[in-house]
């Protein structure tokens, strides 16, 4: 019997796995990809912490910066814990082998990111996420943690309002499997991938866990807050980390003039850049003054990306950039114990709304979040599992439904080209629920999404093979994407104000009566929304 079942094998899932195992739990990690293929590998810039050696900084300043960036939607108690514990989190990563870059005093190097008062972001050159992810993976192998790789989550199994397992598709064979467990942790990542063609995210970031939680009756929250990264390579949406600006890079327009303080919070910088584009100008990242040595030392990966994808050299050329959907602040609402609103169901990492980021996330806070809350989720889920009775491994109703669905879909031809729809969805979201939003275009978009939602039953498969059927996995992802696009639109329409990453040209001010979280939940097959006071 599995004690703790973890869905997702990025930084949050692996941290949860290690900590659940440490508590003595029998752990299984189920993942749509391989652990090292996870989105975490793309985090370049760093991970925030106030260390003993950090100069001109304090936990208090860190808390203030994070809360300020959240635009009053952060939970003060949670942020307090998150920031106060940051040194412990880094120490743990350091102790398991993450090779952090060191400064001349041989302390962990830190760089300055936007929206902060100090050099607070620890890093491993510009491969911080990659090195953290791989180190966690190595530790999981050491601890003999069991993985089911390339298993796609279908649904949570809920009985008497308690989570007791999942159904999943074994991608290699197209078999539907039922996996029961005493407690379940969702660590399935964010939904910036919905902005298909306009995102820095992996093709795998499709919000599957959040969609399954919503369908299972969990509360999800703040779906309107989508962070756009200011600097992605133009038209390619390949991330150039904030470290480029943190190390002293400039943003310049066609005339070579700087037009904004590069280290303002991401929402402000991204909007300033987008405005330039709307005025017919282009925006460039200018790093020429930093010199080749500095560039090679601090951002070797970024230099290579620019060279490989743009055929430009950072030390000599201006780099054309545009904002791109990067991080989703919303997700499954969780408390300080990483518990969701469903008993025995936990969530951590980008799929959760853990009360830290609110309306805008500070650069360097997401890697800290996955490790901080991955640990909390792993420990608590393991402790809770000890109190849960063994669950009978009989076939659940959900399993039979999903098995029939997957068997049925192989006999059904497709009337709709959902690949085309996926592209349209990305464009529609970026244009109408992007950096600037207003009621009319969002209402039109909502209508469109509802139309596409109705069509979902008309979609079948053109690929009938049972072996590694990516046509099928793409379709399951598309259904989740449509479900979540619906929640983004409802939330963005409901929030008639501007706050953080959510900017409405028809309601430009931040309003006190919206100092609340958006909460969405499913009731009688339809999605409801309400605003809830911040705890």
């Amino acid at each position: 019997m599995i004690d703790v079942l973890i869905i997702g094998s990025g930084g949050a899932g692996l941290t949860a796995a290690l900590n659940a195992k440490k508590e003595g739990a029998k752990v299984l990690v189920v993942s749509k990809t391989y652990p090292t293929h996870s989105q975490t590998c793309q985090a370049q810039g760093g991970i925030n912490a106030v260390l003993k050696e950090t100069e001109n900084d304090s936990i208090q300043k860190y808390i203030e910066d994070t809360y300020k960036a959240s635009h009053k939607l952060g939970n003060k108690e949670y942020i307090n814990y998150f920031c106060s514990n940051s040194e412990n989190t880094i120490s743990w990563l350091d102790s398991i082998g993450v090779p952090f870059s060191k400064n001349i005093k041989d302390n962990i190097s830190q760089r300055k990111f936007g929206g902060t008062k100090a050099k607070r972001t620890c890093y491993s050159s510009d491969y911080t996420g990659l090195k953290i992810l791989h180190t966690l993976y190595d530790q999981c192998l050491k601890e003999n943690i069991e993985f089911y790789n390339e298993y796609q989550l279908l649904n949570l199994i809920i009985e008497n309002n308690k989570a007791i397992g999942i159904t999943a598709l074994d991608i290699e064979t197209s078999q539907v499997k039922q996996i029961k467990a005493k407690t379940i942790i969702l660590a399935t990542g964010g939904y910036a991938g919905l902005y298909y063609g306009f995102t820095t995210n992996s093709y795998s970031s499709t919000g599957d866990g959040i969609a399954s939680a919503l369908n299972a009756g969990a509360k999800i929250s703040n779906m309107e807050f989508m962070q756009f990264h200011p600097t992605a390579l133009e038209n390619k949406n390949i991330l150039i980390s904030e470290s480029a600006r943190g190390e002293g890079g400039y943003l310049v327009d066609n005339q070579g003039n700087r037009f904004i303080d590069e280290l303002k919070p991401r929402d402000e910088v991204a909007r300033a850049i987008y405005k330039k584009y709307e005025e017919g100008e282009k925006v460039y990242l200018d790093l020429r003054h930093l010199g080749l040595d500095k560039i090679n030392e601090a951002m070797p990966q970024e230099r290579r990306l620019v060279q490989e994808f743009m055929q430009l050299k950072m030390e000599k050329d201006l780099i054309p950039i545009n904002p791109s959907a990067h991080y989703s602040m919303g997700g499954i609402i969780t408390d300080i114990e990483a518990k969701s609103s469903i008993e025995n169901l936990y969530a951590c990492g980008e799929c959760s709304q853990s009360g830290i980021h609110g309306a805008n996330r500070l650069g360097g806070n997401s890697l800290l979040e996955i490790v901080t809350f991955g640990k909390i989720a792993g420990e608590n889920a393991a402790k809770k599992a000890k109190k849960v009775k063994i669950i009978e491994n009989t076939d659940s109703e959900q399993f039979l439904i999903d098995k029939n669905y997957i068997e049925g879909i192989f006999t059904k031809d497709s009337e709709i080209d959902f690949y085309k729809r996926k592209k349209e969805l990305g464009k529609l979201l970026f244009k109408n629920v992007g950096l600037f939003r207003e009621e009319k275009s969002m209402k039109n978009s909502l209508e469109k999404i509802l139309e596409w939602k109705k069509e979902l039953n008309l979609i079948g498969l053109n690929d009938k093979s049972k072996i590694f059927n990516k046509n099928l996995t793409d379709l399951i992802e598309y259904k989740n994407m449509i479900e979540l696009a619906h929640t983004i639109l409802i939330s963005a329409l409901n929030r008639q104000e501007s706050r953080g990453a959510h900017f409405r040209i028809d309601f430009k001010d931040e309003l006190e009566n919206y100092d609340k979280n958006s909460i969405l939940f499913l009731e009688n097959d339809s999605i409801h929304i309400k605003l809830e006071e911040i705890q």
Partner: protein
Amino acid sequence: MKIKIKRFDLEKNPHQKTEEFKVTHNETILDSLIEIKTQQDNTLTYRCGCRTGVCGSCAIKVNGVEKLACKTQLNENDLIEAINNSKVLRDLVVDLSHEEKFLKNSKTYLKKQSNEKVTSKDVKLIDVQSNCILCQNCFSSCPVYEVNKEFLGPYALTRALRYVNDKKEANTLDIINSIQDNGVWDCTLCGNCTLVCPQFIDPKTDIMNLRMKSVQAGFEDKSFAQFNQGFDSGFDSGFDTGFNPSGGFNPNGF
């Protein structure tokens, strides 16, 4: 532009067959594969993720050479196929279960934390090796697997060196011990792995370093023993760094 893809679906045909497609979107090979899958043939199967060369999921062979599909530009008539040394599951997707096995067998993880102070110089010593993305390019290019399926191989050995050279590790001998059989001495030093690494890691040199460290730790230099058996040249190799004059760098592969 034309692209040729070696296809495989056991349900349809037990053999691989090459198909040709015309594509318009040809900046990268991954773009072309996506165009084919989404617009021409929904059955085309491949892995992909980050599109920026850092998740390592899209390793393929282009005209016989290992590449990442997301970082490689398409040229007219390129032949795309699945990587070597692994069972093809379908089209360009191969079984990756060996990854966990090789890493576990090589004990590539921090086992016991030392109390030594780690300096910036120490971190630089493992910087390149810890940039490995486990894409399997090196694994595919390695000729040793044809004769030894249990060979730990370039990525696992590079990772072993990453932990052996990590000042934080107090028990490096355990790792060295685990890479003696089917490990450092089984490499032919052909250098294919080095040529195909998208992260510019040099597993061949890493393996040579591990050989030196093995000898220093008192393990037998098996390549030296084999070399002496094979030749009677009176050639005095002196202190052995693991360099094998009969192997060496072979830029043309095999």
